[in-house]
């Protein structure tokens, strides 16, 4: 995790161009420039800036009592509980501070993230559920009817799903279901989970808007799950215990569902974990096209305005989620497959 933080910091700090200047835009004057530089710590050498960054992110951090210093414990920056202080330095326990957005005046990155991340999360989870259910089902069908036309059709569709760029499928789906078939589907081309009603008063949830983005986002994982499920099920069918089950005279239904499928699920679960995090990233395109108010759309906006703290924060949070999910999956894996032991 430390490595990720380091890589991200240095990647974004070797940027050509002066971020302080970018914030002020055209109407700059040197005094303002100096103030901003000081506020964000840009006047310090890069190694000091790096230490500041780590200090901001760390749960336990050190702060100066001098109001002039960058690390001064100001209440509108940090939500902290003081632990103890030595001399001029206070040690505190705090929530990681991701700094402020450059372009949205004074808005904290953590606020931006808490506003948008849940939306993306809902979208990704729905997409994964769609991909899992449909993918496992189609994978089983494909394996059971191996080499028939049914299997071949599913295979072709799955290759198709893997090679379509997500922004292209998003455009096609928005166009086809949201525009051409709008009369029948009543789906909008764009829309977010929460929308103001016509009077701009109450905010209400529109589940309807979730359908198209989630389906589009689910296409790729779906294609992968189908392939994996099919291959792993075919492998399981050749195992001895399936033959034993057959010899015992179990019904085909019991063999497939109780013996084969559960064992064939392992690689699928691992793959899904990998996919979940990249879906948070892949949501960039889908959210952008459907106007879904999530992290991905925020990243695109931040990219266009070069709002570095927001991009850094988003990349960081996705990477950390990725690590956490992987740990969780390792645990699920042990439960699914008793042969594997946690290290």
């Amino acid at each position, binding site marked *: 995790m430390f490595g990720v933080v380091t890589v*991200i910091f240095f990647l974004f700090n070797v940027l050509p161009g002066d971020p302080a200047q970018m914030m002020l835009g055209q109407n700059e004057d040197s005094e303002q420039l100096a103030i901003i530089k000081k506020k964000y710590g840009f006047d310090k050498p890069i190694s000091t800036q790096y230490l500041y960054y780590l200090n901001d992110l760390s749960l336990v951090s050190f702060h100066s009592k001098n109001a002039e210093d960058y690390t001064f414990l100001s209440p509108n920056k940090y939500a902290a509980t003081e632990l103890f202080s030595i001399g001029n330095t206070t040690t505190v326990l705090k929530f990681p501070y991701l700094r402020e957005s450059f372009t949205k005046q004074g808005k904290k990155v953590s606020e931006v993230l808490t506003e948008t991340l849940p939306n993306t999360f809902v979208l990704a989870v729905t997409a994964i559920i769609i991909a899992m259910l449909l993918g496992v089902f189609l994978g089983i069908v494909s394996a059971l009817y191996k080499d028939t036309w049914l299997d071949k059709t599913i295979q072709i569709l799955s290759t198709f799903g893997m090679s379509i760029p997500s922004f292209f499928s998003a455009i096609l789906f928005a166009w086809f279901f949201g525009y051409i078939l709008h009369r029948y589907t009543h789906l909008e081309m764009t829309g977010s989970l929460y929308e103001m009603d016509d009077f701009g008063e109450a905010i209400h949830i529109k589940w309807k808007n979730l359908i198209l983005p989630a389906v589009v986002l689910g296409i790729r994982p779906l294609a992968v799950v189908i392939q994996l499920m099919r291959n792993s099920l075919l492998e399981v069918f050749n195992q001895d215990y399936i033959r034993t089950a057959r010899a015992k005279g179990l019904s085909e239904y019991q063999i497939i569902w109780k013996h084969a499928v559960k064992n064939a699920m392992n690689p699928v679960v691992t793959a899904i974990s990998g996919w979940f995090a990249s879906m948070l990233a892949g949501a960039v395109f889908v959210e952008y096209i459907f106007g879904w108010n999530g992290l991905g759309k925020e990243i695109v906006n931040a*990219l266009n305005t070069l709002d570095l703290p927001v991009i850094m924060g988003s990349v960081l949070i996705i990477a950390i989620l990725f690590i956490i999910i992987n740990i969780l999956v390792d645990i699920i894996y042990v439960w699914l497959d008793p042969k594997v032991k946690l290290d």
Partner: protein
Amino acid sequence: MSLTSQSLKQLALQKFKKNFWGVFSFCFILLVGVVSVFAYVLAPDNSQYANQMHLSIHSKKPGFTVSMLTIPSGMDLDQNVFDKIFFGTKNADTEIPISSFAINKDTLSYTEYASDGLKGIEKAISLSVFSNNNPQDFIKQKTFLFGTDKYGRDLLSRVLVGARISFFIGFVAVFISLVIGIFMGSIAGYFGGKIDAFIMWVINVTWSIPTLLLVIAITLALGKGFWQVFIAVGLTMWVEVARVVRGQIISVKEMQYVTAARALGFNDFRIIIKHILPNIMAPVIVISAANFASAILVESGLSFLGIGAQPPMSSWGAMIKDHYNYIILGKPFLAIIPGLCIMSLVMAFMLIGNALRDALDVKG
């Protein structure tokens, strides 16, 4: 079993030939490769980046035909044949779509093309600008097979020239990823210990940042532009290659042929290059085909976001970005054609990857 002895390579080739989709994709990729190299020869609009704009005939349907008047600029552009064939013709001539024209004594009067029933502006021009005083030679019927884009450029030419970037990025990214990946993977797998631990740490860090975001970060660090994208994609893809190479090397390190080579006193470098690598190439080849496909996808995605190839360079992703708003204006082909191009090329690489996997008997 046949009696004639065959090398493993021949056997793999034989298996590959039997796979219809594999051979089909191979031919398709070859075709796209040729097209991308000779794009400017094949394209109707052979100006640099196929960038000849005619705003008055923007976003027309495929098969649109108009008479085009070319007014020579009189400038003599110095350009050799090689440059023309591979980088397009530098063109200073003005092309004007016209609906009608008439020749009076020494002037040519014409009506500019205007769509939607509007009347075009009438203009006159002296005949002396045309080199042989015969303006008829400079008026030609032009058909736009794929229609025109929102600047009135020929979509077919843009698509052909755009194939270059997609194809090229695949090559560069796969090349970079192979060089770094094989190097890192083999020293990690072969030497083990601290080197292995360090390289695995780098791999895990790179791996836990999603490819797209990492590429975005690198492109931001290196600046916008298409070379940056090439490098960025290559720098993120080596991870997979390195993992596979490392795993393979660990599994063959203890095999007898490696021990034998060591007993003969060969140095480590020679053992890795000459003895181990040729034996573990199969999975690397399969991964490279997959990487090729994902490099194309990532590039189109970046261009779609506007941080890939910069205009006037033509890239399929950027073409979709420019035109996806037109999809509800009854002109979906503008975005769908480049989209289909990306899809078919990516699919061809995926199918070829699958075929290679079956032929080389690589697991999973």
